[in-house]
């Protein structure tokens, strides 16, 4: 006979404000099989959990239903409490009467009635629950880090220093990400290359880290602790072991005028190139799209001059397989470019540039060797307009969020401009200054007060070219919304930070969910920022949302700590919510009739064929068998099986059947 305990939570008054919790408890007590039914102000608090433990021991409960918040919140909490009191955790269910009831309905009879329905549904389910033991699964103690920006580098180093193997995959020819493109970084103005390059070298030389640069993730199968990654090493068209990185080929290549991605289109590069001097690995790659050989079969000059004959024109892509136990996604972000803005001329004005392009102008290794010059005529600009919130916080452009870092780098840009062009006049058009980090506000204050940067609070409505100058039409809302018209020589747009192109393809390959702006979705915005809903896959850096370097590094170390925790046990404990095929005593052995339609439908190839033989070795029948290590518990096979010979623990036929009838108040007569 079932002995069920029901515990109805007030959740302070989040539930009791619209649901008559006392009545829910008293009605629950009438349900056959319920022997204990109470309500309490804070079930998830220690005294609340103590109520559950005491009731289990005193009344010998065989099942617990906690009517409170969503199981996605506190199911683990109450299952742990039950386990501590000696009741198998999988005999505890949560009835969601907060998110699905008290918060979304008005106070009244219908709301309380619905709460009672929900409790009755879960009581019916818990009666059919069975005690389950967790599954033990081996853990491969190698981590896969996707993305070689500062976040990926930090995560890789932390995991490697914890003594685990790391595979770092970077899409570009060199690691470094957007940080390597920066000139100096706020708030300390120390040179980006100086603080980044040592870390990049450390990655290259770390014995635990295998670096696959100019490579992308082809596919990922398996599950936490047992992923199988397929990495595509794109052909660099040269043998990396032979190449010494002398750079002769890059000097001799006849094609010199290809826009350099690293210089954000302002600088030029040859067809065989190293993105930037401090690149790691410091080996060139042939750009097959522009290289003459790949278009006309001629030239091959680089091959002739190469002292170690390292050039391999017909080198194919290579697929590398790797077993990994955890994945840290640190693929970074992208920014909108000038051509995105109709009111700023759709990118037709050469002197309207974006933040990254200004970084390249200001960078010593940039196309202008650090001098601020106009891309159109190379002159030093007398007046520079900096426009903050270009695209960000603009619902009409589909980007309602704030990109968080632009206020800081705009102040930095204005400051750098003043340091390089003393008589120059920087004018920043802004809406609000967001300088919330450590030493951030002081940094912006310094730009205003010591470096004479003029801040005009108002949005720029239009930019157009007149007489060689860029007319910036804005307003100054602090001076009575007076229209402002500034003739600038250069305009720098602090454009919105957006997700990488192709972010959703990678998400679908990893089975990670993403939000409307294609940033990857964290498991919980406040409490689990570096985890995803897919066990074993973690997040770090701007791929989760725009953020600055300190935050990206902190997240990377956080993700690395999570991986460390995962790798600290030799075995992984997994929820036993998996499918099981019916087995019976001989002569039937199983109700499965061996049609194996389930096998084809399983996304994890978790269903195998098992031959059942008599003692004489005679084959009696071939039936399905689920590999508990691979099955992820989706239940598709269960709903496909015509003879109901396969069932899933936690959502079994009996459980869901009884839930449907209980919800409609047609439960069975028995207790």
């Amino acid at each position, binding site marked *: 006979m079932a002995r069920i305990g029901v515990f109805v939570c007030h959740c302070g008054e989040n539930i009791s404000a619209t649901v008559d919790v006392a009545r829910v408890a008293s009605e629950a007590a009438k349900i056959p099989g319920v022997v204990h039914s109470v309500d309490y102000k804070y079930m998830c608090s220690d005294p609340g959990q103590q109520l559950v433990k005491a009731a289990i021991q005193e009344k010998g409960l065989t099942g617990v239903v906690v009517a409170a918040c969503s199981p996605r919140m506190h199911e683990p909490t109450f299952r742990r409490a039950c386990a501590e009191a000696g009741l198998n955790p999988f005999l505890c269910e949560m009835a969601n009467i907060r998110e699905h009831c008290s918060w979304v309905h008005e106070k009244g009879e219908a709301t309380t009635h619905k709460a009672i329905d929900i409790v009755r549904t879960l009581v019916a389910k818990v009666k059919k629950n069975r005690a389950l033991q967790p599954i033990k699964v081996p853990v491969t103690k190698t981590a896969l880090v996707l993305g070689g920006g500062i976040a990926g580098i930090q995560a890789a180093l932390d995991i490697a220093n914890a003594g685990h193997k790391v595979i770092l995959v970077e899409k570009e020819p060199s690691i470094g990400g957007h940080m390597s493109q920066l000139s100096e970084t706020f708030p300390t103005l120390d040179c980006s290359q100086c603080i980044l390059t040592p870390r990049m070298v450390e990655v290259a030389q770390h014995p635990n880290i295998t670096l696959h640069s100019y490579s992308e993730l082809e596919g990922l199968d398996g599950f936490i602790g047992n992923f199988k990654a397929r990495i595509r090493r794109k052909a660099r068209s040269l043998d990396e072991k032979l190449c010494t990185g002398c750079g002769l080929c890059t000097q001799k290549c006849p094609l010199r005028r290809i826009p350099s991605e690293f210089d954000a289109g302002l600088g030029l590069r040859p067809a065989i190139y190293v993105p930037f001097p401090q690149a790691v690995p410091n080996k060139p790659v042939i750009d097959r799209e522009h290289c003459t050989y790949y278009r006309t079969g001629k030239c091959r000059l680089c091959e002739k001059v190469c002292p170690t004959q390292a050039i391999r024109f017909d080198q194919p892509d290579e697929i590398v397989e790797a077993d990994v136990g955890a994945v840290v996604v640190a693929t970074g972000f992208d920014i909108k470019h000038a051509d995105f803005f*109709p*009111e700023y001329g*759709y990118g037709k004005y050469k002197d309207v540039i974006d933040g990254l392009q200004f970084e390249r102008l200001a960078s010593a290794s940039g196309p202008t060797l650090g001098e601020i010059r106009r891309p159109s005529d190379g002159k030093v600009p007398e007046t520079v307009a900096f426009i903050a919130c270009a695209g960000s916080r603009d619902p*009409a452009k589909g980007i309602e969020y704030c990109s968080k870092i632009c206020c800081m780098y705009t102040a930095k840009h204005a400051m750098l401009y003043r340091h390089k062009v003393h008589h120059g006049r920087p004018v920043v058009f802004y809406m609000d200054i967001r300088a919330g980090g450590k030493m951030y506000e002081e940094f912006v204050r310094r730009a205003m007060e010591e470096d004479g940067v003029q801040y005009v609070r108002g949005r720029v409505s*239009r*930019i*157009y070219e*007149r007489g060689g100058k860029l*007319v910036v039409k804005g307003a100054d809302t602090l001076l009575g919304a007076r229209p402002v018209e500034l003739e600038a020589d250069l305009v720098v747009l602090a454009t919105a930070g957006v997700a990488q192109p192709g972010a959703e393809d990678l998400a679908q390959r990893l089975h990670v969910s993403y939000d409307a702006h294609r940033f990857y979705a964290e498991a919980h915005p406040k409490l689990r920022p570096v985890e995803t809903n897919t066990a074993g896959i973690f997040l770090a850096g701007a791929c989760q949302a725009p953020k600055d370097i300190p935050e990206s590094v902190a997240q990377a170390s956080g993700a690395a700590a999570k991986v460390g925790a995962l790798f600290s046990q030799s075995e992984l404990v997994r929820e036993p919510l998996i499918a099981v095929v019916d087995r019976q005593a001989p002569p039937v052995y199983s109700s499965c009739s061996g049609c194996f339609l389930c096998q084809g439908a399983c996304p994890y190839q978790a269903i195998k064929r098992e031959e059942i033989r008599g003692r004489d070795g005679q084959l009696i029948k071939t039936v399905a068998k689920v590999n508990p290590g691979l099955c992820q518990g989706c239940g598709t096979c269960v709903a496909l099986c015509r003879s109901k010979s396969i069932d899933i623990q936690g959502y079994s036929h009996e459980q869901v059947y009884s839930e449907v009838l209980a919800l409609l108040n047609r439960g069975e007569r028995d207790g």
Partner: protein
Amino acid sequence: MKTGFYPGCSMKGSAREYSESLLAVARELGRELPEVPDWNCCGATAAHNLDRDLALALPARILAAAERQGMAEVLVPCAACYSRLSVTRHELLEDEELRRRISALVAADYRGSARVLNIIEWLEAVPDLEARVRAPFARKVACYYGCLLVRPAGIVKFDRPEDPQSLDRLMRRLGAEPIDWAFKTECCGAGFSVSRTDLVAELSGRILEDAVSRGAEAVIVACPMCHLNLDMRRPNIEKRAGRKFRIPVIYVTQAVGLAMGLKTKALGLQRHKVSPSALLAPASVQPAAGATSASGDSPAGAGSPAGERRP
């Protein structure tokens, strides 16, 4: 498909030439434009500042009348009326309860079936426009859209709100050469024409200044209020700017009429304050790109006598 015509107050009053040129062009194209019977004021800028229901009821009554006549779409040449009718149709289709209440208010069941067309959409729909051009409008023109033709962008959904191209494309089909300028949708001063003429002088002045500096020989408009400020307020503009602006301001329908060789009288060109005579002089040999002087001046009275039908 039957297309109705809602003139609105200005087409019968200060902008008669817009209506005259439209009907002349329509006759030439053989497309009849039956007026919406018993039409009333659209509420323009006044109504929605006073009372929301009034601002919705006035246009709803017009559109309901059009629907009763079986009109599938209604051409609304004036940009202000176009904006009011479009907004009303949008709001009443979004909110069933509001639609019922406003229909009751105007004692007419407004369904929202009739689409609201602006003048450019109506002209764009003429398939053989190029074939009907007898005298190409070979001039550098500044296409001025004003604000109400392309906004509120979410509701009107016509062309690109920041940098529209539809009028430019239309003028190119007539042989004109539109200039690339940034004042297409900058405010001309609109309703301040009477109360703050100084503001209009400044704002409209800037528009003309930029158009002239880029070599435009005419400003093409599609809204009576823009025409009022750019043309009739020319003395105020010139006084404030301290210089003369000879550049004429004509309606797009007048430009189409001229290109189709219609008589200037039929197009009401004589009603403008700033004489468009410069446009009537035969275009110089090569296309007008910069041929005539920047300000497009020509001694008053020169050019072919008005009224003569172009060869």
